[in-house]
C-alpha cells in the first residue's frame, strides 16, 4: 500500500474501511442499474411477477433475448443506430479536423471571435431546432431517412470535437510540419501525413465522444424517423410496449443489447474517454 500516495481532503481518513465503503458506494451507484436490468432480462415472466420479488434470477433463461429479436426488428434498430452514429462520427471528424487545423496553425484574423462562437454553439439547445429542422426535413422529403439524423448529429458534436482537436494540434511541434513542407509536402499534405497521425489519440477520443452522443440521442430520432424500419435503438425500444402490456423482461433484454456496444467501447478506451471528457466541458 505504501506505493500509493494519498492526496485530497479525505486522505487522512483513508484507512481501509473508508476505502472499502467508498468503493462499494461508487460501484453500486455506477453499475447496479445496468446489472439489475441484466438480471431482469434473464428472468421468466413468472418469476418477475412472483412476490416477494427475487433479486438474482432463479432459473436464468435467454428466452427474452430471442423474443426481443422476434417481436420487433431489433437488428434493424441496431443497424440504424450503427449507421447513423458511425457516418455522423466520420463526418464530424473530417469537418472538425479541417477547422481545428485552421484555428490551431493558420494565421486567422478573428481567431478569438471564432473560438467564442464555437463555444457558444456548443451550448446550443438542440430542442429549439426541433421545429425548424422538422419543417425543413419535411419540405425536403428527408423525414424517415438516415440523413435527417446524420446532419444534426454531426453538428451536435462538431463544436466540442473542434475545440478538443485545436488543443491537440497546438501540442504538436511545428518543426515536424515544416520539415515535411521543406521536403515538398503542401500544407494540406502535412496536415494529413504528419499532424493527424501524430494526434491520432486525440482524433480517436473525439470520435468516441461523437459516437456516444449520436448513439444516445433521442428527441430528433423520435421526431424525424417514425417509420419502424428507420428507428434507432432508443426510439425502437418503445415499440415493445403494448397499450396495456409492458413486457419488462423483453424490454430489459433489448436494453442490454443496446447497452453492450457502448459499454465495450467504454471499457476498452476508458482512460481516453475520461481525458477527452475533462479536457473541455462537454454535454452531460
Amino acid at each position, binding site marked *: 500500500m505504501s506505493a500509493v500516495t494519498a492526496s*485530497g481532503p479525505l486522505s487522512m481518513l483513508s484507512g481501509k474501511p473508508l476505502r472499502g465503503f467508498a468503493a462499494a*458506494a461508487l460501484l453500486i451507484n*455506477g*453499475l447496479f442499474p445496468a446489472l439489475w436490468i441484466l438480471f431482469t432480462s434473464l428472468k421468466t415472466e413468472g418469476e418477475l411477477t412472483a412476490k416477494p420479488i427475487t433479486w438474482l434470477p432463479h432459473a436464468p433463461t435467454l428466452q427474452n433475448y430471442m423474443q426481443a429479436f422476434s417481436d420487433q426488428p431489433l437488428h434493424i434498430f441496431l443497424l440504424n443506430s450503427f449507421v447513423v452514429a458511425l457516418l455522423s462520427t466520420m463526418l464530424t471528424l473530417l469537418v472538425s479536423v479541417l*477547422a481545428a487545423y485552421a484555428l490551431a496553425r493558420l494565421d486567422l484574423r478573428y481567431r478569438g471571435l471564432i473560438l467564442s462562437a464555437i463555444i457558444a454553439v456548443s451550448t446550443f439547445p438542440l430542442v429549439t431546432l426541433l421545429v425548424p429542422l422538422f419543417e425543413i426535413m419535411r419540405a425536403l422529403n428527408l423525414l424517415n431517412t438516415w440523413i435527417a439524423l446524420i446532419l444534426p448529429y454531426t453538428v451536435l458534436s*462538431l463544436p466540442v470535437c473542434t475545440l478538443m482537436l485545436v488543443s491537440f494540434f497546438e501540442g504538436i511541434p511545428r518543426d515536424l510540419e515544416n520539415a515535411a513542407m521543406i521536403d515538398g509536402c503542401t500544407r494540406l499534405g502535412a496536415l494529413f501525413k504528419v499532424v493527424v497521425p*501524430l494526434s491520432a489519440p486525440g482524433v480517436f477520443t473525439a470520435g468516441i465522444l461523437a459516437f456516444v452522443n449520436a448513439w444516445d440521442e433521442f428527441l430528433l430520432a423520435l421526431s424525424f424517423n417514425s417509420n419502424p424500419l428507420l428507428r434507432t435503438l432508443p426510439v425502437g425500444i418503445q415499440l415493445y410496449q403494448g397499450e396495456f402490456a409492458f413486457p419488462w423482461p423483453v*424490454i430489459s433484454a433489448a436494453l442490454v443489447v443496446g447497452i453492450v456496444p457502448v459499454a465495450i467501447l467504454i471499457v476498452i478506451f*476508458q482512460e481516453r474517454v475520461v481525458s477527452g471528457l475533462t479536457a473541455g466541458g462537454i454535454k*452531460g
Partner: protein
Amino acid sequence: MTTTSILKATDAQEQRPAAWTRWLDLGDRPLALLLLAPATVLLALIIVYPVCRLAYTSFFNLSLTSGMPAEFVGLDNYRLMFDDPVFWETTWNTVLITLITVPGALVVGLALALMANLPFRTQWPVRLSLLIPWALPLSFAGLIFAWFFHSEYGIVNDVLIRLGFEGIIWFNSPGWAFAAICLTIIWKTSSFMALIILAGLQTIPRSLYEAADVDGAGRLRQFFEITLPLLKPSIVVALIFRTITALQTFDIPYMMTGGGPGTSTSTLAMYIHQNTVSFLDLGYGSALAVVMFALSMCVTTVYLRMIRTKE
C-alpha cells in the same frame, strides 16, 4: 513514432506533393478560409438558418393539419402562450427540474468525486463506475428507473417494504412522479459532474495539504479553504453545461411518465415536441421554442462572460 522516423517517412514519400494536394497549395489566409468552409456551411445549414426560420415562423399561424398556407399573425402565438396554462405549467416544471437536479447532481457528483479520488490500488473499476452512467442513453436511464420505481415489482418499493415502510405508487401522484423523475436525472447526470470535478481534484498540488497539516488545519477546514476554492473553475463549467441540458429535459420524463399524470410532469421540451410533431402546429411550437432559446441564451451569455474574464 519518434521524430526521426517521421522525418524519414516523409522523406521517402514526400519528394513531390501528391497531385490532389498540389492544386490546393494556397497561401495561409485562403487556405484557412477553405478549411473552415465545411464547418461554416454545416453550421449555417443546421443552426443559423433554422434559428432564423424559427423566429420567422413564430409570427405565423402555420398548422400543417389545416392544409392552409401560412398566415402572418404578428404576436398572436406569443399572446396565446401567455394565456396558456399548460405553457406555464410545463415551463414551471422545467425550471423546477433545473433548480432541483442541478444542485442535486453537484452535491452527489462532488461526493462521488471525493470518493473516487481516494488512493485505490486499481483505478479502472472506479473509472468505469463513473463512465457507464454517463454513456447510458438518457432514454434508457428513464426506462430502467421506471422499472425501479414500478409500484408492484420495482426494487425501490421492495426495499421500502423490507425496511418497514409502505410501498409508494410512484406514477399515480404528481408529487411522487416528479420526485422519481428528479432522482433519476440526478443519478444520470451526477457521474459527469463527478468526472469533471475529479479532474479538478487531481490538479490540486499535494503540497498545499501538507502545508495545511503543518499549520494544524483540520480536514474540514482544508476542504472548505483549499479544495472547494480550487475546484471552483471546474465546478462552474460543469454547472453551466448541466443547467443548459437541464432546461432541455425531455428523454427521462417522456420515458418514465409521458408527462403524466395529466401534464403534471411535462416539461417545456415535451410541450414543444407535442405541438410540433403530434399537433403539427409549427407556429405555436416555434413561439415556445423561442422562449426556450431565450432561457438558454441567458445561461450561455453568463458562461461566455466568465471565460472572457478568466482569460
